């Protein structure tokens, strides 16, 4: 069982979490919930088990694990689906005293909107009635009675604001994950700690394309307030993919500086408590302040770099026709930089020794000329039996190398 962030509806008053059952590397089921920051209340949002793992008691194990993880929390099980009502009827609630359906609203009404809880209970009762289920009715507070009057009296006690601010891209560094499958040579290179980290980061970014930073998909491409949350996105994406990829992949996390915009002119976005989802169909310019990555074959080893100066990049437009004029000027239709970064002159490392080096070079040329003159006067030696070529070393594989092909997950 694994506890992880859950990117549920972003406007919910509490952050989303989930317990995931992993069986032999496969996601077998999960329970999604919202957790109050004080961890004294949680609201179950969904409980799902993959078809291959049903009728094994996994849903109950997931719920048990959730209740054990937060032993002091009020639990709102919410309204149930048809399958949910059937499951609940067979489930043995280990902590009925924390189930708010079993307690009067005076106990928990600061955490939950009492009239909505009562409406959920009415729905559950109707389902029980229709399908002939008991639904633990004897444990439930005032089961089958009219709840409107009592529960409405407690509506004003509800405190929807938990005090946790929503993510703000104009003030916070944000982190987004992507998963890339690199050609084998490039994969080895970027995960080789003996190689220069800055160079590996440069190669990675050029391979992906500066204008190809991710947009939200099922799991990745959300811009989180922590690096760990972004890596979790990548892990979840891998865990829940329907056709597991046989090649090793790279979890790549981009770190973006706060957007250079006042809050009123930000791109269209939805902000949750721990993440932002850019909804603008147009591209979004960002300045990268760093990157980190790890291989799916070794999730414990992370490579990380903080750039000396911000690297301009962009979240890709939703579709090529949505690209802004600035984006089209800077990136091609594949999101690659039109002007490679190599054309930007690097500072000369030996500038302060220019004169000394020039002097030595002149001496080497003079000496060489002198030796050539002397040698011309002597008979020529036979050429060596085998050639001796200068070892230049292999350049790192990059976008220009022939194996620069590979799907992004």
């Amino acid at each position, binding site marked *: 069982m694994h506890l992880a962030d859950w990117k549920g509806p972003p406007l919910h008053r509490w952050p989303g979490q989930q317990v995931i059952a992993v069986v032999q590397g496969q996601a077998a089921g999960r329970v999604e919930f919202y957790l109050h920051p004080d961890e004294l209340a949680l609201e179950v949002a969904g409980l799902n088990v993959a078809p291959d793992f049903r009728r094994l008691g996994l849903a109950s194990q997931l719920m048990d694990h959730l209740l054990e993880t937060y032993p002091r929390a009020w639990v709102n099980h919410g*309204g149930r689906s*048809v*399958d949910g009502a*059937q499951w609940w009827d067979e489930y043995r609630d280990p902590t009925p005293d924390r189930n708010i359906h079993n307690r009067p609203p005076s106990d928990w009404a600061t955490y939950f909107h009492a*009239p*909505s809880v*009562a*409406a959920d209970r*009415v*729905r559950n009762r*109707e*389902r029980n*009635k*229709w*399908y002939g289920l008991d639904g633990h009715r004897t444990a439930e507070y005032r089961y*089958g009675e*009219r*709840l*409107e*009057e009592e*529960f*409405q009296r407690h*509506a004003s006690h509800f405190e929807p604001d938990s005090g946790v601010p929503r993510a703000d891209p104009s003030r916070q560094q944000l982190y987004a994950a992507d998963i890339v499958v690199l050609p084998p040579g490039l994969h080895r290179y970027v995960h080789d700690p003996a190689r220069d980290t800055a160079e590996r980061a440069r190669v990675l970014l050029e391979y992906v394309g500066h204008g190809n930073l991710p947009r939200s998909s099922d799991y990745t491409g959300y811009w989180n307030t922590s690096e760990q949350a972004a890596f979790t996105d990548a892990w979840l994406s891998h865990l829940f993919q329907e056709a597991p990829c046989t090649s090793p992949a790279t979890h790549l996390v981009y770190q973006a500086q706060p957007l250079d915009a006042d809050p009123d002119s930000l791109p269209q976005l939805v902000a949750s408590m721990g993440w932002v989802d850019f909804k603008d169909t147009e591209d979004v310019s960002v300045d990268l302040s760093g990157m980190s990555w790890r291989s799916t074959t070794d999730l414990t080893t992370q490579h990380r770099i903080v750039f000396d100066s911000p690297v301009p990049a962009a979240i890709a437009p939703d579709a090529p026709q949505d690209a802004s004029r600035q984006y089209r000027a800077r990136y091609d239709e594949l999101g690659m930089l039109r002007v490679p970064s190599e054309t930007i002159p690097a500072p000369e490392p030996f500038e302060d020794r220019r004169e000394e080096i020039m002097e030595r070079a002149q001496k080497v040329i003079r000496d060489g000329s002198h030796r050539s003159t002397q040698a011309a006067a002597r008979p020529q030696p036979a050429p060596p039996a085998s050639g001796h070529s200068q070892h230049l070393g292999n350049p790192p594989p990059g976008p220009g190398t022939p194996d620069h092909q590979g799907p992004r997950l």
Partner: protein
Amino acid sequence: MSSSPSAPAHTRVTLVGPPEAVGQLMEALSGKAEVRYDSRSDPDDRGQVTCTAEVLTMAAPQEVPADAVVTFAVQALIDVDLTEREDHAPGQASHQVAEEATTLLRGVRGSSDVEARVVSSRPARAPRP
């Protein structure tokens, strides 16, 4: 789980607006669906109320076998003289009227799971000059 005959569909309805308008809309809704829950807040600073309701609809008219337990949704109109009651305020009275109607309906032979609710209230007669 079997779904024959078709299971009722549950819909959560939230209405926010002037009390009269919310009342009219809920009344209209009750003509199309079974209102199973109807909770209304007191008017806020702007005079608006919030109504949280749970309504139930059937996909299509269902054939009822003679030996089945049948849910009847009964529309009843009752004129009540509030001056003859202790619960003079209309809000209080509607709750009590629903309670008393439920008690009376429990007298229907073979009945179980009886519930009555006030969907709307209005003056019964034209104002006297």
